[in-house]
């Protein structure tokens, strides 16, 4: 045999081995069996939680797997789950079941990446009456149901009782209006000024008008600032009676209510001084650390969600704290305002076992499982009824406040629009400009309005083109 032929053979072999590896590497991924060794149907479940939140869900999964012998749910923790699910679904290889956030529903549903659940819900006899209405509505879009809740959340004012007491305030009496919040915040705020060449620590309220106007002080502790934790930039308008959209086709970023809210927001920069706030803010540690400014006693009041208990418990168990509804501008008109969002369970389009996946969703939405999960994650139940036992055994003694807020008529859901991610980003840029005194609220929110309406129109144009086909397709699946 000539050496060339030998080479040719070797070359062919290289080629074949590579092609075989390539084909197996891509094509055969699907092949692993969708059955367990003992013949149960395997439901692949992607979820975002880690740590104790992950453990709480795993316990529910284990209960489900023990409760019957037909289906086996395998939970896999996945980071950046919304991105990964998008790519997996686009690639035709999604999980059978996934845990997303309710704000993902509009994008995924409109783009045909989720399975509508109406028929399955009907068969199971699950209706809106079984839930706190706002959480059911968060799972709905264009007349179809796309998910069921797993863990819900609402937000409220958290305050540091010791800092109230030190400032001579009643530690059991939180602010009830925005004006009170501002005033009490000033009373708690401790600053350092130079008087006659000597540094003095006094309350903000003890500053002279001149010292206030020139901002010639350093902030030591702060009563309140809306820039901490900086997560609520998009939603301040809610506490002033504003909304982010008209529930149809119009963005309302620069409504008078939103402008009023951001004028209040900017008032904090004007009051305490941009450089003072920046310098004070630079000292904050990570959110999930003992250096979190609320946990470290640097900021006395903060708006936070039901999850905050976990961080207090872990990083600052000694903290004296309490929870109340975040004050609105006019509590007569708008009592118990809160923002609600929830984690949801969805069945991606292309799931191999829709019915079996739904069996699990249904199980999670029974009262015992829902309460076990939310007790484990220290949140509350999205179901209409909550057992006394749940409230009694809940480690967060303010859990009823969060529950009551979620049931309030002023519990405002995350806007169900598919440009929500951009909207939040744009509002954050606007809030930044407003906070840094680079633009007036009118200008900054006007820019958001123009840009977001343009983007929203573009999405709606596309939706209008495919609407009929999509609705038909979804109805056919019923």
């Amino acid at each position, binding site marked *: 045999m000539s050496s060339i032929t030998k080479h040719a053979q070797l*070359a062919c072999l290289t080629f074949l081995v590579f092609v075989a590896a390539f084909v197996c590497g891509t094509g055969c991924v699907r092949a692993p069996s969708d059955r367990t060794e003992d013949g149960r149907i395997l439901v692949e479940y992607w979820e975002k939680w880690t740590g104790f939140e992950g453990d709480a869900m795993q316990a529910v999964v284990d209960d489900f797997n023990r409760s019957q012998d037909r289906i086996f749910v395998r939970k896999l923790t996945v980071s950046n789950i919304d991105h990964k699910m998008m790519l997996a679904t686009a690639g035709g290889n999604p999980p059978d079941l996934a845990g997303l956030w309710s704000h993902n529903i509009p994008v995924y549903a409109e783009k045909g990446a989720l399975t509508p659940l109406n028929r399955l819900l009907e068969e199971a006899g699950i209706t809106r009456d079984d839930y706190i209405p706002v959480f059911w509505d968060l799972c709905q879009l264009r007349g179809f149901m796309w998910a069921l809740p797993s863990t819900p959340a609402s937000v409220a004012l958290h305050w540091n009782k010791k800092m109230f007491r030190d400032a001579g305030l009643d530690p059991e009496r939180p602010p009830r209006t925005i004006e009170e919040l501002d005033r009490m915040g000033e009373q708690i705020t401790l600053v350092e000024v130079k008087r006659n060449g000597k540094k003095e620590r006094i309350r903000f309220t003890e500053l002279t008008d001149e010292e206030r106007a020139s901002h010639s002080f350093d902030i030591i502790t702060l009563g309140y600032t809306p820039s901490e934790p900086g997560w609520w930039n998009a939603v301040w308008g809610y506490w002033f009676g504003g909304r982010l959209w008209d529930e149809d086709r119009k963005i309302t970023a620069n409504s008078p209510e939103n402008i009023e809210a951001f004028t209040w927001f900017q008032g904090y920069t004007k009051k305490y001084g941009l450089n003072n706030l920046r310098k004070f803010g630079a000292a904050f540690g990570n959110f999930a650390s003992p250096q979190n400014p609320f946990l470290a006693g640097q900021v006395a009041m903060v708006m936070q969600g039901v999850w905050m208990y976990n961080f207090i418990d872990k990083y600052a168990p000694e903290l004296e704290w309490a929870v109340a509804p975040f004050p609105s501008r006019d509590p007569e008109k708008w009592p118990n305002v809160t923002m609600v969002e929830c984690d949801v369970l969805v069945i991606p389009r292309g799931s191999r076992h829709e019915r079996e996946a739904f069996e699990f969703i249904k199980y999670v939405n029974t009262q015992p499982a829902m309460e076990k999960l939310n007790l484990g994650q220290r949140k509350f139940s999205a179901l209409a009824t909550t057992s006394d036992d749940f409230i009694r055994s809940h480690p967060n003694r303010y859990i009823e406040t969060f529950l009551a807020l979620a049931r309030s008529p002023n519990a405002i859901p995350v806007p169900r629009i598919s440009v929500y991610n*951009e909207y939040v980003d744009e509002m*954050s840029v606007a809030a930044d400009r407003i906070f840094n005194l680079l633009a007036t609220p009118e200008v900054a929110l006007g820019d958001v309005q123009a840009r977001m309406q343009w983007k929203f129109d573009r999405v709606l144009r596309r939706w209008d083109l495919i609407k009929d086909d999509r609705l038909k397709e979804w109805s056919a699946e019923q």
Partner: protein
Amino acid sequence: MTKREWREFFTGLGFISPWIIGFLAFVLYPVGASIYYSFCDYDVLTRPVWIGTLNYQDMFTDEVFWKSLRNTLYFAAVSLPFGLVLALLVAILLNQKVKMRPGFRTIYFLPSLVPVVASSMIWLWILNGRFGLLNYALSFIGVEGPNWLSDENWTKPSIILMSLWGVGGSMVIYLAALQDVPRELYESAEIDGASSWTKFRHITVPMISPVLYFNLIMGIIGSLQVFAQPFIMFGGGGTNRSALFYAVYLYQNAFQYNQMGYACAMAWVLFIIILFLTWLATKGTRKHIYYAGE
């Protein structure tokens, strides 16, 4: 070609087939597809819909696009010349006969080995407005440092500063080139009474000009594609989007806003910009580059 030559040709192809298949599947196809998607409304989840040049037209009116482009060009225009000069300077210093030379070389090269995520996290602390090391150091000379990370005028300089910290990579390439300059050229220049500057200007620079050119081109490409540091340090772009760079905005469109078509169009515009600048750099420097082999 003869039969034998054909056979050799296919044999050769067979041997490099792993690379060819990989290239076709993972480079050529995606690149080709991205051209097509750039003319489509495409969100990854649904079928792409042909919309002609709308994505490209949108770019003209998209203020954030222009802002990200301006930020990126500013970054490139400042960090690139500074980086090139600094790397050369350090390389020349490290090429002198000093004690502990290998030790110094290692120290200056080390930062470029630190993973970008780790170095970004370190810089977040160095640049912290209140407790940062940099502002602490500045306080010794009576300067009250700015809030590097939250003041919109200082976010870009922060990233530039960081990029200069990592010049070790191009420094090593200069160093290799400097060691390759024939000693006899310096010796004959010295006999003729040339000063240090003259030697540098007329011997060192021409002799290492191909490497200068290489670092320039790689610098242009690298600085226009800057992504990891600003993405880690400023996420959405920092105060008033002052640190929103082109690649970060592209990523946002592709993976956060479901606008893969627009992102593809942005990628092609960036490609054309880089191509143009590279061509410009090549044309501008052609006469000044000396290749010993030519």
